[in-house]
């Protein structure tokens, strides 16, 4: 298994002419080939990646600096629109779809010289927590092939841990970067909502969808946030990046207040995870942090809020897959309505259909107030609880999931059980605050991870503290 150098080191070597981008791309592609039994990758972008690599190598020869990520190969979750191949969102309804534009996040990475070499597997349309909802294949956990890598960015997480590329990017709508990062064992950052443009990313729930890096180190995640963040005219929900950027971080934890979220440490939490978190909390105390027990009483309602709002927004966002302008189309339809219904019936997987039906119900006349509007009101309570908490602490800390990586098939027959694995990650999405997964231990030969949260727009502060936790592991 390959251990790539830090991405800063790689790009420096490429810009110095010591490493060839073409060699790096070829290395990544052969590693991808050698680990195909993990099912992490849906497709590779060999031709375009090598073309871009050649351009970079030639430009470097003539003395040009090709960016902070010059020649660095990376893997994108297959819900990012990319040139040079297909974008499927792991759904049959988008099989064969060739994107006519790229996502802004990918454009920003490319402008700094990074090269997208492959598209990673996910739960179809990012609906899921294990990749078992992918229409194509189930990704295996790099530590144990009988277990899931987490989801929905399971392929992205597995790619980083298997060493297929130095970093990957994923999306997090209810935990889909943080949970697979915890299950597979890598850093997974969900930034403040709006920091990274959603343009060119297959929409799931537009009011909570976040793009984020999945990396080996906090420093690399910070650099990638610095590169990908900032206002984008193509996404009017984007906000300005921090004026100080995200590169120089303050990892001094002395005197900082860390709140342990009471509602996240109940009897459903695995004792192994609790013990590892307790160890890290003691280390943080020794390093000078002040540990406070804190309660956010509305948190137990967050999952119910999420599973009303998310399907509602999904039902709206998936209405564009109608078999008329792109994607699967049912040729034998007799009229337009039949073309719509059959294309969607045959193209969508079961979970997509489930969420569309729930979403349609909670938005429909007579039920809108009781479900959708009520959920948005409770969402205000969640925003307020976090706001209040961050008045008395700098960070909130908790587990990422109640258990370590579960076995393939363990939850796939029970949709509600699968939804419950999101219980510790959805609240930051609803409030728009940043949160990060940091692996802290190995137990039962599987990763154990911790989740750190900060107030909205405090990503720089969050990454600093995350760096300290990383040092203490």
């Amino acid at each position, binding site marked *: 298994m390959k251990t790539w150098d830090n991405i800063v080191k790689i790009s420096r070597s490429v810009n110095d002419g010591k490493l060839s981008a073409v060699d790096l791309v070829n290395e990544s592609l052969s590693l991808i080939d050698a680990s195909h039994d993990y099912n992490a990758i849906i497709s590779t972008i060999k031709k375009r990646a090598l073309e871009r690599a050649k351009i970079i190598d030639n430009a470097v020869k003539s003395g040009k600096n090709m960016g902070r990520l010059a020649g660095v190969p990376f893997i994108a979750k297959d819900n990012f629109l990319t040139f040079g191949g297909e974008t499927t969102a792991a759904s049959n309804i988008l099989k064969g*779809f*060739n*994107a*006519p*534009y790229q996502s802004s996040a990918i454009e920003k990475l490319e402008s700094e010289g990074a090269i997208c070499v492959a598209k990673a597997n996910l739960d179809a349309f990012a609906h899921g927590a294990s990749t078992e909802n992918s229409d194509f294949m189930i990704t295996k956990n790099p530590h144990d092939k009988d277990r899931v890598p987490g989801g929905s960015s399971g392929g992205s997480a597995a790619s980083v841990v298997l060493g297929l590329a130095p970093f990957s990017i994923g999306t997090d709508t209810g935990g889909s970067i943080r949970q697979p990062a915890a299950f597979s064992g890598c850093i997974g950052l969900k930034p403040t*909502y*709006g920091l990274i443009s959603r343009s060119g990313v297959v929409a799931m729930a537009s*009011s909570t969808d976040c793009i984020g890096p999945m990396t080996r180190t906090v420093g690399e995640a910070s650099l990638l946030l610095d590169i990908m963040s900032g206002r984008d005219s193509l996404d*009017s*929900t984007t*906000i300005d990046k921090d004026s100080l950027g995200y590169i120089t971080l303050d990892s001094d934890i002395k005197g900082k207040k860390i709140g342990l979220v009471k509602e996240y440490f109940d009897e459903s939490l695995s004792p192994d995870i609790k013990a590892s978190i307790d160890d890290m909390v003691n280390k943080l105390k020794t390093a000078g942090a002040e540990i406070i027990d804190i309660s956010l009483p509305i948190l137990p*309602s967050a999952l*119910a*809020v999420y*599973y009303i709002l998310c399907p509602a927004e999904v039902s709206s966002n998936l*209405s564009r897959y*109608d078999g*008329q*302008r*792109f*994607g*699967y189309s049912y040729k034998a339809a*007799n*009229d*337009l*309505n*039949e*073309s719509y*219904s*059959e294309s*969607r*019936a045959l193209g*969508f997987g*079961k979970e997509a*259909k*489930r969420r*569309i*039906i*729930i979403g*349609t*119900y909670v938005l*429909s006349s007579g039920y809108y107030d009781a*479900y959708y*509007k*009520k*959920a*948005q*009101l*409770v*969402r*205000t*309570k969640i*925003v307020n609880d976090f706001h209040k908490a961050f008045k008395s602490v700098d960070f909130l800390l908790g587990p990422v999931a109640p258990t370590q990586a579960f076995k393939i098939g363990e939850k796939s027959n029970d*949709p*509600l059980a699968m*939804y419950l694995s999101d219980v510790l990650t959805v609240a930051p999405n*609803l*409030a*728009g605050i940043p949160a990060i997964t940091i692996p802290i231990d190995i137990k039962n030969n599987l990763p154990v991870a911790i989740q750190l949260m900060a107030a*909205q727009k405090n990503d720089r502060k969050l990454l600093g503290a995350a760096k300290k936790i990383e040092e203490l592991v």
Partner: protein
Amino acid sequence: MVKLSQKDILKLANLAQLKLTPEETAEFSSELSLILDYVSQLDKVDVKGLEPTYQVTGLNNVTREDKKIDYKLDKKLLMENLPSSKDGQIKVKRMIA
């Protein structure tokens, strides 16, 4: 106890322009009843005096100049993705059979 009958499911599927098989309709009737029952716990939450949160950025009326922008989209690719086309136009089935 929230109960979605198969008839309810079919009505929703129709609204969503999504055809379901009889098996899916039966499955969803029981599965979704359980899920909706779970989320109905919000009935008990007191939200007096609160406004709904539709988005968390606090942004309002983000505008741009009323100027044409050339996005340089690959028209060939746009056309290639079309399931059915004629003379550079998207072709769809007749609306009424």
